[in-house]
């Protein structure tokens, strides 16, 4: 009996405290819409509620990509950079670049190519044999003593990569066989993937590396 009494008291205490807490806020809001109007602040500073960010000692702060220029940076380095660019321009002007290589993005894949290469492109690709192409997505071009790196691609008027479609064929027959043992499931398909051969005719760098043209894309008609 004593136990039941104590339990009853505890229950009363719990209900009193909880109900008091719940009533004025949540329950009233739900049932009496008039109360809501009173709570609206007519005048006052607009304050945005900051989301609470829980921080624990082992949490790392978010990486910031905003970077500062280190103090070591000097005019000397700027001059050195200008010298390098001048040398590259000189090499291009006097045609001392050697055999150029390039990394191009073509048909979803990247190829490292040089002049007179033949590359094989797999999958459906519209160009027909005999088409002359100008490959414009050039990620990187390198010569004997320098490399131009695109971020992500180089200016399409700076580098021109010319190519010709040689041949359109199919690959060898690929057997695609699926089977589940003891489940009476067996499928066999034969696939031949279309393949295009592309000859790289020339890779050239046009004009100075650091020069920025005022008007671009005049050669292109849409």
């Amino acid at each position, binding site marked *: 009996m004593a136990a039941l009494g104590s339990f009853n008291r505890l229950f009363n205490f719990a209900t009193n405290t909880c109900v008091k807490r719940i009533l004025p806020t949540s329950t009233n809001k739900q049932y009496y819409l008039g109360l809501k109007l009173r709570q609206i602040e007519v005048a006052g500073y607009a304050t945005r509620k900051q989301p609470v960010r829980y921080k624990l000692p082992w949490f790392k702060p978010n*990486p*910031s*990509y*905003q*970077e*500062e*220029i*280190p103090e*070591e*940076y000097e005019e000397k*380095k*700027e001059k*050195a*950079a200008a010298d390098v660019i001048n040398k590259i321009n000189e090499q291009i002007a006097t045609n001392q670049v050697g055999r150029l*290589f390039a*990394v191009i993005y073509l048909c979803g*894949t*990247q*190829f*490292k190519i040089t002049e007179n290469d033949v590359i094989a492109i797999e999958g459906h690709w519209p160009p027909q044999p005999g088409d002359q192409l100008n490959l414009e997505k050039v*990620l*990187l071009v*390198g010569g004997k003593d320098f*490399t131009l*790196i*695109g*971020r*992500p691609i180089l200016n399409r008027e700076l580098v021109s990569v010319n190519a010709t479609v040689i041949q359109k064929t199919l690959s060898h027959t*690929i*057997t*695609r*066989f*699926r*089977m589940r043992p003891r489940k009476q499931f067996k499928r*066999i398909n034969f696939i031949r993937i279309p393949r295009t051969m592309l000859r790289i005719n020339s890779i050239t760098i046009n004009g100075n590396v650091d020069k920025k043209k005022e008007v671009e894309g005049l050669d292109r008609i849409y």
Partner: protein
Amino acid sequence: MVFLTAQLFVRSRGPDEFWRKRQIFKLAAHYIGRKRNCYSIAIRNVHRALLKATRGRQLKKQDMRELWETRLNGATHEHNISLKILLEGLNRCNILLNRKSLANLAIWEPRTFKCLSDIACAKAKLGGIKRVANNSMPETVMIKGLVDELD
């Protein structure tokens, strides 16, 4: 052909037994022993081989990716950084070369690759990556162009 009963229709499926078996035996021609001569054993092995060939085409792509990663790891450790730093640094510079072309450059154009790894190292250092904290700033990198333009 006239099929008088459903039973006969079921029995007459496909090409003749001889040709059906010959198809399998052709594929098993280079096997050794009973695998090559007994049909019931041959077909088991042919099926298994074809399944493996189908799966192998996917595996080859994964293997190549692993191979490029291994090669790049070796190449980057020559320049005192790791593959993760290289990829992270280049991505932050918006240089979107993939593993295949990077591995190709590492093998055939080592000087180009050295430049790329220097750029990545410098970018990682400026970004405050802990792994390269002890590396010295590559002297060949002119930093001004690397800094992101503030919007």
